[in-house]
């Protein structure tokens, strides 16, 4: 999706935020870009998710991806649809945290590399290694490294989350509260 500033209202419009669970948001991912008149029998043929040929687990999008609302439903929708990785040259802060907290890996690459990805043909494939922190264009073997802080990397690789960590900190947190009181 070589579109910049894709906001979370496009990823999941507000009218689909009425659920009280985290499941099933993939159905409405990019709802208004995917269908005409909000009708699933009228897919917009020129929208990328409606092309059968693009069936991977990596979403590649223009810069400032995930801007706008803090709705975590955006990350849930992308994950539920089947994506494991989002690649862009720039992510909005809250979206990035939300993605990481849901095991969806946001990868920031250089503008030049992103443009190269957009030039690839639909049949080309990419391989992402979180361990090695690289994105590789399989055809050419060309690689780009990406940054991720080591704490978050460990969490993703081992399936830990921040809450596990924080709960174990409760005693220190209580001590902190007494200090500031």
């Amino acid at each position, binding site marked *: 999706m*070589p*579109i*910049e*500033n894709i*906001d979370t*209202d*496009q990823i999941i*419009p*507000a*009218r689909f*935020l*009425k*659920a*009280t*669970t*985290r499941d099933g948001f993939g159905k409405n991912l990019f709802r*208004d870009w995917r269908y005409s008149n*909000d009708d699933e029998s009228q897919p917009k043929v020129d929208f990328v998710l409606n092309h059968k040929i693009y069936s991977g687990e990596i979403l590649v999008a*223009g*810069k*400032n991806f995930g*801007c*706008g*609302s*803090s*709705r*975590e*439903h955006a*990350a849930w929708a992308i994950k539920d649809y089947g994506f494991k990785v989002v690649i862009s040259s*720039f992510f*909005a*802060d*809250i979206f990035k*945290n*939300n993605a990481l*907290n*849901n095991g969806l890996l946001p990868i920031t690459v250089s503008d030049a590399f992103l443009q190269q990805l957009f030039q690839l043909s639909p049949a080309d494939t990419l391989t992402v290694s979180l361990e090695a922190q690289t994105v590789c264009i399989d055809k050419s073997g060309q690689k780009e490294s990406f940054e991720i*802080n*080591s*704490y*978050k990397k460990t969490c993703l690789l081992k399936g830990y*989350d*921040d*809450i596990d*960590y*924080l*709960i174990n*900190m*409760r005693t*220190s*947190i209580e001590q*902190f*509260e007494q200090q*500031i009181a």
Partner: protein
Amino acid sequence: MAKTLFEKIWDKHVVKQIEDGPSILYIDKHFIHEVTSPQAFKGLEKRGLSVFRPQQVVATADHNVPTLNQHLPIKDELSRIQVQQLIENCKKHQIELYGLGHPFQGIVHVIGPELGITQPGMTIVCGDSHTSTHGAFGAIAFGIGTSEVEMVFASQCLMQTKPKLMRINIEGELNKGVVAKDIILYIIAQISASGATGYFVEYAGSAIRALSMEARMTICNMSIEMGARGGMIAPDETTFQYIKGRQFAPSGESWNQKVQEWSVLYSDADAVFDQEIHIDATAIQPMITYGTNPGLGIAINGFIPVAESIPDEGERHTIEKALKYMGLESGKSLLGLPVQHIFIGSCTNSRIEDLRQVALLVKGRKKNEHVQVMIVPGSQQVSKQVQAEGLDKIFQEAGFEIRQAGCSACLGMNEDKIPAGEYCISTSNRNFEGRQGAGARTLLASPLTAAAAAITGVVTDVRELM
């Protein structure tokens, strides 16, 4: 060592710093609402945990509520269930809820400040990106996702990486017809919708110091629209006077002590920012947006950029796509464009001062017959004040419809939506495609500019009516 306002507050709230990782940041106040909290409560319960510090959590129902007949059950089933879930969750976890029917109910970013819950020096979070609003009081306030809401429930802490710091200095006197909304739309148009991503912004300078608290909230509110995690303004006498005497404000001896603590909350003279921007207040005109992100704004008497002349391909494509959606043309003025809807409300511009400005302009005038005008006060308390000051009569005589408190037509979630293809001048914060309803076309502007268009039925330079 010299510190910024942000650093003074941040440093006091760090429980622990993880090596090559985030800080564990203590949160003083946690606001919640019906849309982004249910999954957090569920997650917490799944782990067999209860809310760690329920007394530091305050809840309200705002996003998904109707703005008519709030005494009746909510018609939409899913919305009703979501609001009901909030009631049950708050009861179960002993969280104070200002729900529908409560005299304190309203948009979360309106009620926190007006009740005196929001105070200088605090860390404040909410599962809502416009939490940046509370930064107007000299607090570190930012929006979080639902997993983070769960973290705060579980531990009253968050894992956060310290952001970079930016200061935006605005010096000089404002032109006639220019209000806080124009300042922030101007800034975003200058630095773009992603110009402050990765930063926390402090607004400073004589133009900011001269603003009321309501105006400062409008500015901090839209910090997220340039990508900033939050915005803040050093507290001063204006801040203290606003807080004093409010429901949950400190009182008696504790008041004096607090004011003393708050008085040191400013950036030291030699504090260093990662980036500084200087803006001349006299260069700002009343603003309006023409595109589908808040950075695509122009002076009301300016012209839409000519897309073909923009060298950056991505930016050109963004503008072309936006103009197609908006049904507007490159190089044209927006003045005179017929609009069908006016929405005055949202966490950006639904406070009493906003409504006073509108009332002053429309007093003795009538709305244009082709526009529908909706005024949605930000809270029950604002509604009450509107009546006490007789502003409701002015609005009724002008043909404006006054609704009950809620997020309303800002986000196309509740019953209040703008029909596809129609134009709405909105005092809210986002003009994204479909934000106010699928296919709706939003032009962001100040309450004054919105009111001017309500009277004329077309995009109007408010100065012509002043």
